[in-house]
């Protein structure tokens, strides 16, 4: 095996065993890019999720975002569907993270940020939804694993507790106790693929977990409140390849139950997990299409350059 050839990217397959392509024979160096992509097409046996399983959750309609008077996202329109993973790719500064953060109105905490255009969640404009309610329905996982300084159990239960419920209300129902929360917490931890590793001791401090486990705990936390959309902002960029693979596996298996948008710098990751890919450049949406379209037959010259450059 030539050490310079990047490992071939392939789709994550859910139930079938995964087969690793032999590296394209005799091709070394920059030219190796094209056959590697071709190899993906050949291997991609998973196919699209069938139309019946895919439901549109969010619609982004000509959204533009600015910090002060500097535009960072211009006129982007995209659908976000449950049953598939949408990957936002592009170079640094292309506005993908800003676009992602605008979906749960997290951009609003940045002073001077403004937005134009329409974003809807299940047909309802996100401005019209109370912001904390919106963020329970559209949850987010960040680049750095950031569990809170409490136990594993409490980290997930934190998302479930309604802290700001009216005092009168809380008195009537009592503060939700551990027993009441336990099934939901365990379910979330299981869906994030962490349960087997922590089942024996959910009361361990979360900060004692490894980086990859912490990030899966963050995913569990984000899943706990039963969101409709899960936003992932480069969730694996601080992790090692094995943790990354575990999380990617979870992402793919979660897409049936929650719409997923993932921002990634890692094109191979986008190829492994995404069904649809949106390529952004300098705040503009250059190309949007299925993973195959974007990676194998990019329509735009800039997409071709970006993908080719990253592989070459």
């Amino acid at each position, binding site marked *: 095996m030539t050490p310079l050839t990047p490992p071939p990217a392939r789709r994550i397959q859910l139930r079938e065993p995964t087969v690793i392509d032999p590296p394209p024979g005799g091709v070394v160096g920059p030219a190796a890019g094209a056959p590697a992509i071709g190899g993906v097409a050949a291997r991609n046996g998973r196919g699209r999720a069938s139309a019946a399983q895919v439901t549109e959750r969010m619609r982004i309609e000509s959204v533009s975002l600015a910090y002060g008077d500097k535009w960072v996202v211009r006129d982007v329109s995209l659908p976000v569907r449950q049953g598939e993973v949408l990957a936002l790719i592009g170079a640094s500064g292309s506005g993908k993270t800003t676009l992602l953060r605008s979906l*749960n109105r*997290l951009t609003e*905490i940045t002073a001077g940020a403004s937005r134009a255009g329409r974003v809807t969640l299940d047909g309802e404009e996100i401005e019209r939804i109370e912001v*904390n*309610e*919106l*963020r*329970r329905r559209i*949850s*987010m996982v*960040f*680049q*750095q694993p*950031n569990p*809170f*300084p*409490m136990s594993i159990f409490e980290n997930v239960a*934190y*998302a479930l507790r309604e*802290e*700001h419920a009216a005092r009168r209300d809380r008195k009537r129902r009592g503060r939700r106790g551990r027993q009441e929360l336990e099934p939901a917490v365990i379910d979330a931890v299981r869906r994030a693929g962490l349960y087997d590793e922590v089942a024996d001791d959910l009361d*361990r*401090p*979360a*900060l*004692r977990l490894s980086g990859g486990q912490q990030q899966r705990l*963050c995913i569990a*936390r*984000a899943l706990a*409140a039963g969101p409709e959309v899960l*936003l992932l902002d480069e969730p694996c960029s601080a992790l090692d390849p094995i943790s990354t693979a575990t999380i990617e596996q979870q992402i793919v298996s979660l897409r049936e139950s929650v719409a997923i948008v993932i921002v990634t710098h890692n094109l191979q990751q986008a190829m492994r997990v995404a069904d649809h890919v949106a390529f952004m450049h300098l705040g503009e949406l250059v190309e949007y299409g299925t993973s195959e379209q974007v990676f194998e037959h990019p329509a735009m010259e800039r997409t071709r350059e970006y993908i080719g450059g990253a592989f070459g």
Partner: protein
Amino acid sequence: MATAPVAAGLKPPAKPRSKPRDSISSWPWTDRIAYVLCWAAGIGLCLIAAWIVLYMAIKGISYLKPSLLVQSPVGSPDQSGSGGFLDPIEGTFLVTAIGIVVAAPLGVAVAVWLSEFGRPAGLARAVESGVETIAGTPSVVLAIFGLLIFSKSFLAFLSQTSAGGAVFGRSFLTAGLIMSLLAIPLIVGATREALAQIPAHVREASYALGKTKATTIRRVLLPSVRPSIASGITLGMGRIIGDTAIIVILLGASLRLEGAGGAPILSILRGTGSTLTSYVKENSPAGEGNAPQKAYAAAFVLLVIVIALNAIVMRLSRAGARADGTL
């Protein structure tokens, strides 16, 4: 580390090198002098600290009798008849407790406001320089100011009022309140610095779960900075326990706890007393009590109390932090 050779022919170094290759003899002479001075400064400080503790321990223990800890002081021209210093010990704990009970919540609140809200910016700057001003004010100035304020008739409930209607202004409450000003800047500083070190994405992670700012502060940020709050409190306690000026001016420095009369606990809080610092000052060769042996014994007790309190607070906060995994 790495004792077993991984592959044949790869041997571990025969002898682990104990000195860095970069020997000081290759340094320019200015750097060498600075290096020696750094060492000297560190070791010198260590020696001074050890000297203080050892000297006070020897002096203190030789004069310390258990009876001193349980007897109240008595006014006497001769130190054989002047009793112990139970009241000053109680006074020390009481003033420190009042000061910290007031300062801790206020200090944490100010730090949270400055770090998490801090708007309008002008007000934040004003608060910041206010805290700095208090930190820089000599305690004797604070004490005089306190005497002025607490002698006003609308604050008479904090101390005693003489038959003629003059408000005394001196009591555990007034001294404790002014003492809290010594601790607040230290608690604000420690808490604020720790809050500033929490990365923004941790706050965002909480907001992204649909949590309000208040919930985020209460459930995520404050638990994260608990060790720092504790060390701020420890520093503040050290300032309060060690202060003499405020005790002499605002606590009356009466030999015993002199209650103000009325409800039992309130009586003491509104009454006067002294602490170990003022006791040491009065009885030292420089003071009027003329009981230097008791001054040494009391000074040693004071030192032990400070060291013990520091250890307890740090231990408590570490236990909490360990349970949270922040340590």
